[in-house]
């Protein structure tokens, strides 16, 4: 078996916000009927956290669930555990209409750290990033410049961004340019 390698091998950029490719991250894409108790119970059992509400991210340590659309959630877990989580889901949901796929190697996760991260995201996405509108625990699927992405705030100084692995270098360039020292706009009083 070849050794798994993340898209940018933990590339890091330090500007007024620190951008880092987070390395290998387990991600399982799950679709199904959120109104079905069997489905939601199986998903939260596999993830170890309750089902998130609309546009919310819930996590407990390295486990988590991201609300992606009215019928889709993303399960987060350590990279080596993704296949196990998927197997648990598939057995719990045997006979229930659903779709689950290990997409760990098809997505890339970036972390943004620093007080100016709202500004970095606001430069790239058509999203109101003001602190009273976009709060920690909220998730947004949108575009960052020209590519699709999802991001959520773990806290006011830490955000995580997911994009397709194929656009990881583009995303790194984007985030680094937006986070370059001296390019602060001061929109959110940072």
């Amino acid at each position, binding site marked *: 078996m070849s050794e798994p390698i993340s898209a940018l091998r933990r590339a890091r950029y330090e500007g007024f916000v620190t951008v880092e490719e987070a390395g290998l991250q387990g991600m399982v894409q799950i679709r199904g009927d959120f109104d079905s108790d069997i489905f939601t119970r199986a998903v939260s059992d596999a993830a170890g956290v309750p089902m998130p509400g609309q*546009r919310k991210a819930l996590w407990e340590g390295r486990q988590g669930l991201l609300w*992606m*659309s*009215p019928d889709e959630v993303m399960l987060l877990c350590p990279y080596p555990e993704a296949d196990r989580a998927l197997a648990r889901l598939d057995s719990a949901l045997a006979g229930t209409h659903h779709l689950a796929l290990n997409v760990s190697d098809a997505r890339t996760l970036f972390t943004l750290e620093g007080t100016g991260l709202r500004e970095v995201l606001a430069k790239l996405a*058509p999203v109101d990033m003001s602190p009273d509108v976009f709060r920690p625990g909220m998730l947004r*699927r*949108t*575009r960052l410049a020209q590519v*699709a992405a999802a991001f959520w705030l773990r806290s006011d100084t830490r955000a995580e961004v997911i994009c397709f692995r194929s656009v990881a270098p583009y995303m790194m360039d984007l985030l680094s340019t937006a986070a370059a020292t001296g390019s602060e706009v001061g929109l959110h009083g940072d």
Partner: protein
Amino acid sequence: MLTLKCPYCGITAEETELHAGGEAHLTRYGPDSSDDNFETYLFTRENPKGVHFERWRHSHGCGKWFHAARCTLTMEVFGTYSAQTTKPPQTILDAITAKRPGWSWRDLS
């Protein structure tokens, strides 16, 4: 810029996050239909100056298709609604009537 509220994820999304899907509420005539019906389905579209009903997809967001009612002249949006319907809900029709008395679109008014 056009901003539409996605009825599925509740985001007020601006145009660059969306993809236009053409006219709403078309009847899809298939292989056993008459030539006239099939031609109308393929080629005949409304081209109104005023109230219009369209399909949109929240392509850079939740990925869902939805419907929107808007004015092509002023870009005013009367409302957005679910894709799981073959005609606009009464609340949308009422909102249009309140703002554009006497409007009509196909057989709706």
